[in-house]
């Protein structure tokens, strides 16, 4: 007796949502395989390139991804850029379902004058740089200034502020990229302003991220008293422990001790109007909730006001939401679903939630894929034929064992320096490590 025909699913992207979608598909018991395509030779997406180097516990989630990668039917196809090395239509011809898990790699602009001045950066670029992303490793950040401003009150803004507030000794034993540690060690930044439009209760960062500011070795944290009244720290929802804790931390920061050489100052109710300077960033003009204006001097600004998905050729884009256009995970133009094309994670629902939120999201997308598979007509092409053609187009197709070799080499390099790993930050170095 022959079983039902085996289906083939392609997942584009190897971050959390891609892995959890793959896991849900492979656990379903349906006869199928999952090929995970990744642009870089290394997997894990934002777990490698987004999670801050001083949050090592969160990175342990990678062991769950390795377990998923070891499931029968899973294949990693690294070093292949969908939309460049092969098209979405080629994938749709060869796979019964194609799931986009491409994340939200574009930083939203502030949309104010002066944003292009030297010294004005996005938080996303800075994060990718200190985490050693190959496309960002060559960026230059001039930290030879007294003051930096981070615009935004989300967790990424706090990551950037905290990395700037820490000394090289506080970061030395993390997996921060070596080039970043060298620049940060020479930083002259002593004041970091974390500026947001709303009040303390509207801040989107979590209490857990805010608690890290209690532990800074060389930086005091404060809240500028001009921006707040005592009422701002009274939770509207006293039964919300997260809000209660966040406001109580901010209240504590509003009665600061100033004994340490660096200062991290939270500012509330300020909207940026313009970035100004002759030839580079010198001040930022803000408008306060009270309609008064305020200029803050700084040599450096990092905007952290949200991210959106990069459009992929052949996939309709929802410009309003900044994601691949979809209805509950099925890619769609308006309400019309495109057969065999799906989306999960941040490129489905926007950049929110924790790593685990993407597990629930991936499970939901996998359910949509599984529900549709039975009605899929046979594909004109096959994955193996497609991969054979692809081999002639790319330098090297990277397998999961190849990644494991890169991983081991990074850990060996790190061990010599007392770090969990020293990342390779160029693609040639990654490829060389897997043959060493």
């Amino acid at each position, binding site marked *: 007796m022959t079983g039902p025909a085996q289906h083939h699913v392609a997942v584009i992207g190897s971050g*959390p949502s891609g892995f*959890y979608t793959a896991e849900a598909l492979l*656990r379903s018991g349906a006869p199928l395989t999952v090929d995970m395509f990744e642009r870089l030779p290394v997997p894990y997406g934002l777990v490698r390139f987004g999670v801050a180097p001083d949050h090592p*516990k*969160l990175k*342990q*989630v990678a*062991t*769950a991804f390795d377990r998923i990668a070891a499931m029968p039917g899973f294949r990693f196809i690294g070093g292949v850029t969908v939309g460049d090395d092969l098209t979405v239509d080629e994938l749709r011809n060869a796979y019964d379902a194609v799931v986009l898990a491409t994340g939200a790699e574009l930083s939203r602009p502030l949309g104010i004058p002066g944003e292009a001045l030297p010294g004005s950066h996005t938080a996303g670029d800075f994060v990718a740089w200190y985490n050693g992303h190959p496309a960002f490793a060559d960026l230059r950040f001039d930290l030879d200034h007294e003051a930096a401003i981070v615009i935004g009150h989300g967790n990424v803004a706090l990551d950037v502020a905290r990395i700037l507030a820490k000394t090289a000794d506080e970061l030395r034993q993390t997996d921060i990229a070596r080039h970043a540690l060298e620049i940060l060690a020479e930083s002259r930044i002593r004041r970091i302003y974390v500026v947001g439009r709303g009040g303390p209760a509207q801040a989107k960062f*979590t209490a*857990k991220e805010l608690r890290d500011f209690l532990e800074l070795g060389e930086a005091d944290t404060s809240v500028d008293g001009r921006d707040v009244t005592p009422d701002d720290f009274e939770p509207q929802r006293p*039964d919300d*422990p*997260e809000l209660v*804790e966040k406001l109580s931390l901010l209240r504590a920061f509003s009665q600061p001790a100033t004994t340490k050489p660096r200062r991290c100052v939270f500012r509330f109710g300020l909207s940026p109007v313009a970035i100004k300077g002759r030839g580079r960033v010198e001040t930022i003009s803000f408008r306060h909730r009270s309609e008064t204006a305020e200029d803050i001097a700084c040599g450096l600004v990092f905007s952290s006001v949200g991210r959106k998905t990069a459009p992929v050729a052949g996939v309709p884009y929802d410009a309003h939401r900044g994601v691949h256009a979809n209805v509950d995970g099925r890619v769609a133009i308006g309400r019309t679903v495109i057969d065999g094309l799906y989306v999960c994670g941040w490129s489905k629902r926007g950049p929110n*939630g*924790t*790593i*685990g*939120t*993407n*597990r*629930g999201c991936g*499970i939901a997308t996998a359910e949509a894929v599984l529900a549709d598979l039975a009605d899929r007509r046979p594909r004109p092409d096959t994955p193996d034929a497609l991969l054979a053609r692809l081999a002639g187009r790319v330098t090297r197709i990277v397998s999961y064992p190849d990644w494991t070799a890169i991983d081991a080499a990074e850990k060996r390099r790190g061990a010599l320096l007392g770090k969990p790993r020293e990342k390779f930050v160029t693609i040639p170095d990654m490829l060389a490590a897997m043959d060493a």
Partner: protein
Amino acid sequence: MTYVVTDNCRGCRYTECVTVCPVECFHVDDTMTYIDPENCIDCGGCAPACPVGAIEPDYRLAADKKFWIDVNRKRATETPVISARLPPLPGADERKVALGR
């Protein structure tokens, strides 16, 4: 630190937490779920997902709930891992209302 399941879970056991746990650190028995503190990576995804507010980080527990840290640690060693959602226990929705949620 770790996250901890507390008494509000007893008799509800919605298991929304299980869906969003990235590392499958939830265990289950007939009345509630427990978090294995050895596997929890402190991502915080489960706490807001719980419909009855049963999950808190250990440091935020009130003094009279601190004992749940040990209960979770002990029961996680005695009960199986749960990797997919279960239906809530009978009466869960009524209990949720009674809890003011």
